[in-house]
């Protein structure tokens, strides 16, 4: 049976892989759940190459060359595993990493290298979670004291703690979702929301320890908590919109 059937299978497998990659990178934003924005172009190119290979294989591999010792027409059995990611990308794409992953990691260690600039006067002040963390733990000038801050992230509930305490979270990638790290800000107050809900929180620093040193808690007393739509590229510590 090692004949035309096997060749059409191979062509189909190559084309499916190509279509899967094109589907997540060119036609939709799904690839941003797995890799960084910069990988989009290589993914589109790879998808196109694989699709072309599949078409070429279907069109050109009509002549069998089985008499030769180096027979390229066989389909290695392990190749079937490629069907899993291809079909998964096309029909059953898993969601981006969220509260489950963040809850099982310690918070990423944020280090601020240069001096702190004075904070702008706007209120509430939009900030990233990393910025807030370094301001709380490293800014000896305590510029954040008494300021109203606004930050956006998703909800990671804390099991076993008092009501009204949860982690505002962002997951950050270096390369792909396998190396995800999370930045977290403990939020006191606000409604009890389900895990992975994206919210914008305004509030003030939750006092404790000595501000500007490692003893200060990276925490916020929430004044308002509003639900927001998930940003299309969730794996970055960006400023809140609006």
């Amino acid at each position: 049976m090692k004949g035309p059937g096997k060749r059409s299978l191979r062509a189909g497998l190559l084309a499916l892989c190509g279509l899967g990659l094109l589907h997540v990178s060119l036609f939709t934003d799904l690839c941003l759940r797995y890799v960084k924005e910069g990988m989009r172009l290589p993914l589109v190119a790879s998808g196109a190459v694989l699709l072309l290979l599949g078409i070429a294989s279907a069109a050109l591999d009509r002549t069998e060359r089985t008499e030769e010792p180096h027979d390229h027409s066989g389909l290695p059995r392990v190749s079937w595993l490629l069907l899993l990611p291809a079909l998964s990308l096309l029909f059953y794409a898993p969601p981006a990493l969220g509260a489950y992953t963040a809850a099982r990691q310690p918070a990423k260690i944020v280090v601020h290298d240069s001096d702190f600039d004075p904070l702008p006067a706007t209120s509430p002040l939009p900030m990233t979670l990393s910025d807030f963390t370094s301001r709380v733990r490293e800014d000896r000038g305590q510029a954040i004291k008494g300021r109203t801050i606004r930050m956006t992230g998703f909800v990671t509930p804390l099991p076993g703690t008092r009501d009204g305490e949860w982690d505002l979270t962002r997951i950050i990638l270096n390369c792909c979702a396998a190396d995800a790290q999370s930045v977290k800000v403990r939020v006191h107050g606000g409604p009890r929301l389900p895990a992975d809900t994206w919210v914008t929180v305004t509030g003030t620093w939750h006092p404790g320890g000595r501000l500007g040193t490692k003893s200060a808690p990276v925490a916020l007393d929430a004044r308002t908590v509003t639900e927001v739509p998930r940003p299309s590229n969730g794996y970055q510590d960006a400023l809140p919109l609006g």
Partner: protein
Amino acid sequence: MQNTGVLVEDGRPAAAGDEAGTPAPPRYWPVLLLGAAVVPGGALFLLGRWGDAPAVQAWRTVCLAVTVQALPFLLLGTALSGAINAFVPEGVFNRILPRRPALAVPVAGVAGVVLPGCECASVPVASSLIGRGVTPAAAFAFLLSAPAVNPVVLTATAIAFPGNPAMVLARLLASLATAVVMGWLWLRFGRAEWLRPVVRHTGHQHGHSRWDEFRRGFQHDFLHAGGFLVLGAMAAATFNVAVPRSVLDTFAGAPWLSVLFLAGLAVLLAVCSEADAFLAASLTGFPPVARLAFMVVGPMVDLKLIALQAGTFGRAFAVRFSAATVVVAVTCSALTGGMLL
């Protein structure tokens, strides 16, 4: 019994189609396609029902992420290997490389600088180099050094460790030393029978179009290596989800233990060599030598690489070579780190 009957019935018209010269699918392919469509979904559905659904989702996300991130690099590597196989005349590499294998090894190791990619690309390229007559020891030195010392990876390391150029230098030297030592070890102790005969890299055959040979070799290598990549990604995702990051900090105290622990972690995590510097930088509880070991071992040995090597060179080779590489890499990074960091 009923199933067999259906298969036999299905088989007959297909065989008749073959005789008539028209392409007909083999009798088992609807079964395969149906199985491929239903079994993973069904298994995941049951898993999601039975187990911790977010855990399964995180596993699928990480598994897909490793695969998707690596595929463009794998494609680049297999295209390059197909091109070397079809377009480069036999003997070219032997004219460039020094005649004595003991000298060819360090030259090939340094030549790894030119392949700007991560580790997935280097396996098929090394395989096609052997097919083109390069001595295996030199090809393995290239295989180990290419993902670790190329400019992209060194730049990423410099960015991940700002104000610490010693780390970049240590990574470069330790990786090169490991690659060269492994090449020499192979010259001294390696046996040809551990290597699966690389039948498909036979080079250009007279009377065939080079482009056609390129395409066929390319697609065959990609399908083959891609399958093993998925296998490795599954293993890495399992570890990634099953072992929470907080466990790692318990090992940070003891210096020697932490070196061995981070080396082992590099094998299990299978992070791309372009990203591992950032991860190493984030493991702040560990001494610099341990983080160096993480960055030296990672691009040379990890779960997806072992799977790729087993597929390309054979299991007997992959097991011995990976085990020896871990030992040499840990030693080299401990020595280099002790001197520089």
